[in-house]
């Protein structure tokens, strides 16, 4: 146990911060959500592919950069700081899930394309209200030609409109056999798929996906060893890893808000002195600091234990309880400290506030995480 940032991680963080500062400024984030704008960040995507961010956690034999989940956490913190468009992270989530749940053939087909930036992804592995609830929302049947026909509705799927494939789970029915849990790589532009944007104030990233007898090729069915189906436990692990990484994203964002807010209070004068010099302002800042530092340790601990093969339900629950609360606190108290100056959209503070709200809720916020903790403690 040694909770200090290594020199190696400091170097990684510095290069990632440079990358995001250059290629993902707030103006880009704002422009992507403007009405009528293309919501896909073409140039940023190319830079991230060139810097091997999309390849970071995957093994070299599938075109990856061979990094660890801890390296990926460093990248998520910087992505969160810079409000990196979620399609980048959704794509990584698809890669991580295929890496964990797919066959070698599927990994070897999907991951190289993803690492090269040619495949964009999204995932619907769990309830959008509760990332630990991985009962499948879709029903599927195996057809005579080996394809799978899938129907049902997925709700609140982040970036489904920008993805080339959405990885969702379904209960696969075979006559005379028990249902099996499978993952399906669904093309959102295939026949029978209807996407409906769910309007939100941050650019309509959430989609309702209706599927009516959508045909999925046999190769794109993740059915576990010997085709016997995936275990709920493995799917849950994959869903909780996503949630843990999102906590690191939240902590990065909260840290950025803290820094911006302090900078504002140091520059803004009232009563003839910087508002940073008022104890009331300093105490709000200190409370954000405390919340962010606690959340940072909790979130990194959760990813660390995922990386060492723990189911990490307990650690992920603690991370959500702290990260979602800290980000909300940082942004709302950040608004308070900015006053009217931060309330107008040209200051961009609201961009972080909306990310705090999105990531704090999607997959379950603190109340849901409280139930995970009870379950992890054997009291569920």
């Amino acid at each position, binding site marked *: *146990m040694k909770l*200090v940032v*290594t020199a190696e991680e400091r170097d990684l963080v510095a290069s990632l911060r440079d990358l995001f500062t250059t290629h993902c400024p707030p103006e880009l984030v704002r422009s992507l959500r403007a009405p009528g704008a293309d919501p896909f960040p073409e140039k940023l995507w190319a830079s991230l592919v060139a810097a091997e961010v999309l390849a970071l956690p995957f093994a070299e034999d599938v075109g990856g950069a061979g990094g660890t989940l801890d390296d990926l956490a460093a990248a998520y913190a910087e992505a969160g700081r810079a409000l990196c468009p979620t399609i980048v992270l959704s794509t990584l989530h698809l890669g991580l899930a295929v890496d964990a749940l797919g066959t070698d053939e599927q990994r070897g087909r999907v991951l190289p394309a993803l690492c090269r930036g040619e495949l964009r992804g999204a995932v619907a592995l769990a309830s959008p209200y509760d990332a630990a609830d991985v009962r499948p929302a879709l029903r599927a049947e195996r057809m005579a030609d080996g394809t799978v026909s899938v129907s049902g509705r997925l709700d609140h799927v982040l970036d489904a409109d920008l993805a080339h494939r959405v990885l969702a789970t379904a209960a696969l029915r075979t006559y005379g056999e028990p249902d099996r849990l499978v993952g399906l790589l669904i093309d959102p532009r295939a026949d029978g798929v209807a996407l409906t944007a769910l309007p939100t104030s941050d650019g309509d990233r959430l989609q309702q996906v209706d599927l009516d007898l959508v045909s999925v090729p046999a190769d794109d069915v993740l059915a576990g060893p010997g085709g016997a189906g995936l275990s709920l436990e493995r799917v849950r692990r994959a869903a909780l890893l996503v949630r843990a990484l999102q906590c690191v994203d939240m902590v990065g964002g909260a840290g950025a808000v803290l820094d911006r807010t*302090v900078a504002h*209070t140091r520059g803004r004068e009232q009563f003839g*002195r910087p508002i940073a010099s008022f*104890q009331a*302002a300093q105490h709000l800042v200190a409370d954000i600091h405390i919340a962010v530092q606690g959340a940072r340790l909790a979130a990194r601990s959760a990813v*660390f234990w995922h990386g060492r093969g723990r189911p990490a339900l307990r650690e992920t629950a603690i991370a959500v309880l702290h990260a979602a609360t800290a980000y909300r606190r940082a942004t709302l108290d950040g608004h308070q400290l900015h006053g009217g100056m931060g309330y107008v959209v040209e200051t961009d503070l609201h961009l972080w506030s909306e990310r705090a709200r999105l990531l704090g809720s999607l997959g379950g916020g603190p109340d849901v995480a409280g139930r995970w*903790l009870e379950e992890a403690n054997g009291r569920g």
Partner: protein
Amino acid sequence: MDFELDADQRAWREEVRAFLREHVTPALRAELAEHDLEKRDGELAAFRRRIGEKGWFGLNWPVEHGGLGLGPVHQHLLVSEFEYWGVPGPDLTVTSVAPMIMRHGTERNKAEFLPPIARGEMVCAVGYSEPGAGTDLASLRTRAVLEGTMEDGEWVINGAKTWNSGAQRSTHEWLCVRTDPDAPKHRGISVIIVPIDHPGVTIRPLTAWSGYRTNEAFFDDVRVPATNLVGEVDRGWRYITGALDLERGALTNAGDLRRAVDDLVALADRPRRDGQVPAHDPAVRRRLAQLDADVEVATLMGFEAASLLADGVIPSVEVSTEKIFTSELRQRIAEVALDLLGPDGLLGHRTPAAPDDGRFERLYRIAPLLRFGAGTNEVLRDVIAQRGHAMPSYGR
């Protein structure tokens, strides 16, 4: 960041646990329940001797000072275990006074004071606050005047200290005094070690709401050798703030909080006097889950501070963060306990009818101490803002 105990750390924790399993006897528990820390020459004294025999009072000191040469992480693990078991371990003399003597003391200071501290024979009360100098510690007025030379003269000390905890059990005072009344207030301060049985030292008890005894200490023409001054004259403010950072680090260990939450979770499963089981209420369970998560975070904060100390940094901002978080968490635990127990939670400490012998009733009265003690949380919030985020100081 490595969140996993390595083999050496696990072995160390196991050694500490084995020691506690062997030596935390029912007799020691009974004595602590009856007398707190106040019984002389009893079970606690024997327990302390055993800790001394293990060399654990100087566990993170360098070998040349009679220590074991282990690091802050080892100390942190040990203190956490002792706290979890609810028994006193290395105190402030070991964890904050001695390191300052090592870092800043004269060779003579080190030779004279470190060996008896390591043996558990020298215990210091820390003389910081005065009736007129609390949170604003640097305005302290206890005066020390040198008669003769620094080599063979004497300091003559006059003044009063308050919140002088443990003085009734201590052999010495780690006493902060003003040695230059004309210098700016942070510059004329020194630290002098004063044997507590010297003529002119008077200790008067003060009883706190928690039942805890603290003291006032009066110094009337107390004379000590000039060589009892720690380090250099008029440089004491650095030593005090360094010691206070270490004190916060040691005080904010989450071992006692983990124990409190584990006990509270178990208590919530048992029926109250009205037959209700608090844990059947989802709202209670949600609050307990929050406390559990918070204690886990406090534990990580403690490991982080210890890791930084191991790298040679005195992490002022980190220990301030940790101290605020843990002290306010302790109060939240006591509040949740009272809420879920209802009027049963009022039943007095050590009365048989009280849930868990009134442990949470007492915690409610103990918890305020560490919010204002060892640097009040409001000043520590200033520290976070000013040292951590370069926000300007403009008075308060």
